[in-house]
């Protein structure tokens, strides 16, 4: 029986592999070898620190509004690790981790939140679309790219990341429906972090789970423990393999929790208490993996210290580089609007230059 039959979303079961204490659920082995696991843990440490750094830069006035990934690292690292390099990723706005995993440089990500348009330019060969702030709009693009790949006979798979809130948007439903009808190789990865800004998950939908929504579209749906790197990786890998071999789309609901504010512009004390957060704290995806690795003799304080120092050094270097980027020129806001600048834009640009002279 496939994972998706086993965890058919009306059965009300959530897929888990790694217990909060870092031990594995019975009989199932780990899906990744020790070295890979340690590598992914290292990425997660880096991501956690890069994320914290962004929060700090914003507080110091060195960055604009920022949406932290804090707490959702396993969702993004585990799923992105199951993809291949040429696969297409459509992030929402909280996807620092998935973007880094797919090869977007940290400097680019920082530049975006610092308010530089260059921060939306993916390097050649890396198919990560720019941040999508209008909630729930981009899963359609993931379906379109997957559909095109299918028409062209390519083996490309696409994934859209979005939140629990996004599942309320009409566009999300249209995307799921198209994916079902045209059997596109698309993954819908919903990070259910329990909130859409202040609005709790239960106000978002009367469905028991988000994964269940897949059934109505004739698409597989599975709920996974989003703070469990192994479960996320395994479910995504199965969905990717299925998609690549012509089996169509999958909706994965990663159950997780947003530890930070919605964005740096948000004050969560307005709508959630510390007590509400308490039960989630021991479920921190990094803690769980650390316990697993310690049991294997692969992690100790020494290792943590080394990983942290290495990451910190690299992050500081990137911040310096990002901050050294010169301010954008007047041309930069005009020259990419069309393939060729229109006479109107040329005139407006010349006028602006004159007023600045």
């Amino acid at each position: 029986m496939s994972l998706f039959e086993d965890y058919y979303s009306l059965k009300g079961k959530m897929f888990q592999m790694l217990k909060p204490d870092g031990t594995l659920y019975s009989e199932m082995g780990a899906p990744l070898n020790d070295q890979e696991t340690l590598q992914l843990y290292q990425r997660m440490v880096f991501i956690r620190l890069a994320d914290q750094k962004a929060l700090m830069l914003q507080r110091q006035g060195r960055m604009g509004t920022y949406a932290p990934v804090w707490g959702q690292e396993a969702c993004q690292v585990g799923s992105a690790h199951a993809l291949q390099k040429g696969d297409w990723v459509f992030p929402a706005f909280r996807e620092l981790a998935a973007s880094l995993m797919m090869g977007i440089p940290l400097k680019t990500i920082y530049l975006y939140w610092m308010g530089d348009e260059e921060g939306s330019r993916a390097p050649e060969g890396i198919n990560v679309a720019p941040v999508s702030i209008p909630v729930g709009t981009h899963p359609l693009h993931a379906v379109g790219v997957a559909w095109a790949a299918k028409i062209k006979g390519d083996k490309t798979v696409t994934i859209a990341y979005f939140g629990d809130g996004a599942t309320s948007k009409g566009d999300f439903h249209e995307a799921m429906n198209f994916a079902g009808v045209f059997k596109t190789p698309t993954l819908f990865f919903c990070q259910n972090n329990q909130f859409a800004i202040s609005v709790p998950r239960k106000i978002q939908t009367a469905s028991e789970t988000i994964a269940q929504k897949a059934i109505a579209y004739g698409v597989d749906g599975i709920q996974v423990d989003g703070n469990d790197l192994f479960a996320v990786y395994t479910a995504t890998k199965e969905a990717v393999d299925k998609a690549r071999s012509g089996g169509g789309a999958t909706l994965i609901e990663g159950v997780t929790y947003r530890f930070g504010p919605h964005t740096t512009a948000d004050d969560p004390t307005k709508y959630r208490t510390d007590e509400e957060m308490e039960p989630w704290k021991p479920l921190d995806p990094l803690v769980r993996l650390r316990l697993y690795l310690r049991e294997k003799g692969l992690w100790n304080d020494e290792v943590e210290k080394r990983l942290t120092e290495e990451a910190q050094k690299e992050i500081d270097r990137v911040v310096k580089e990002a901050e050294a980027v010169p301010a954008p020129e007047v041309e930069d806001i005009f020259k990419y609007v069309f393939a060729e600048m229109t006479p109107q834009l040329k005139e407006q640009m010349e006028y602006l230059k004159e007023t600045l002279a």
Partner: protein
Amino acid sequence: MVKLNMVEAINLALREEMERDDRIVILGEDVGREGGVFRVTDGLQARFGDERVVDTPLAEAGIVGTAMGMALYGLRPIAEIQFDGFLYPCLDQITNHIGRIRNRSRGRFTCPLVIRVPYGGGIHAPEHHSESPEAILAHTPGIKVVIPATPNEAKGLLLSSIRDPDPVIFLEPKRIYRAIREEVQEGDFTIPIGKARLVQEGRGVTIIAWGAVVREVLNAVEELKGNKIDMEIIDLRTISPMDVDAIITSIRKTGRAVVVHEAPKTCGLGAEIIALINEKAFLSLQAPIERVTGFDIPVPLLKSEHYYLPNPQRIVAAVKKVMSF
């Protein structure tokens, strides 16, 4: 009288009107428990309960589409769209249904509702949080579009908007949400929709503006002090239906004009205003009319936003050009 900023003035207007009219329901994202991302609806759910101040699922078309249904059934919904850039999915509902239902049903069904939207740039917000879609809305038959430029104006105009028999889109210039604090009239007071405000009288040139740029125009006036330019400033405050009389009366007096808006230049309301002047006061003109506007580009991210926004310097240059013709 109390001194309030625009956020507080709108909050007060909502609160007072909800006390008076129990048909009012506020709906939107984060408007309840959190009191809105800008705190405009702060405390209202605590006061009026979660049936009258409702946190909805995240779905803009859903919010305004159901608001229309509520209005059809006799409630007075006030929908909040969290930011300008997220109004676009509502255009289907607004254009195809909300703006047409009275006409289509020959007056049998009507839809008096308010859609409040914080709009415009200048707060260093992320992408899609700095749009000025007013021309698209003014171009849509059957809806009114109101834009306050000060706290007191916001209160009086909002009360009129809520009581209007037709749908009103109430665009709130978020850049000046907290920038101006002024005395706001207490109690039941309204400012009529469709009437411009004469901000400053003058005989030399008419400056026409609305929303956050009215403040930029006043800053330009400061910069021009000593230049002996006698400026008349008109704040349109309703852009649909526009107060054409106020514009024409002023042009007949001054013969010169500058229109200032933050929205892109092409097909912006500046074009409409100039066309109206041509139709009704062409022979009074002593100089071509100037426009100071945003550009025909997506509003840039924060590092380049200052390039985009009309500023006093650009307004001053336009005024000087018009005066020296």
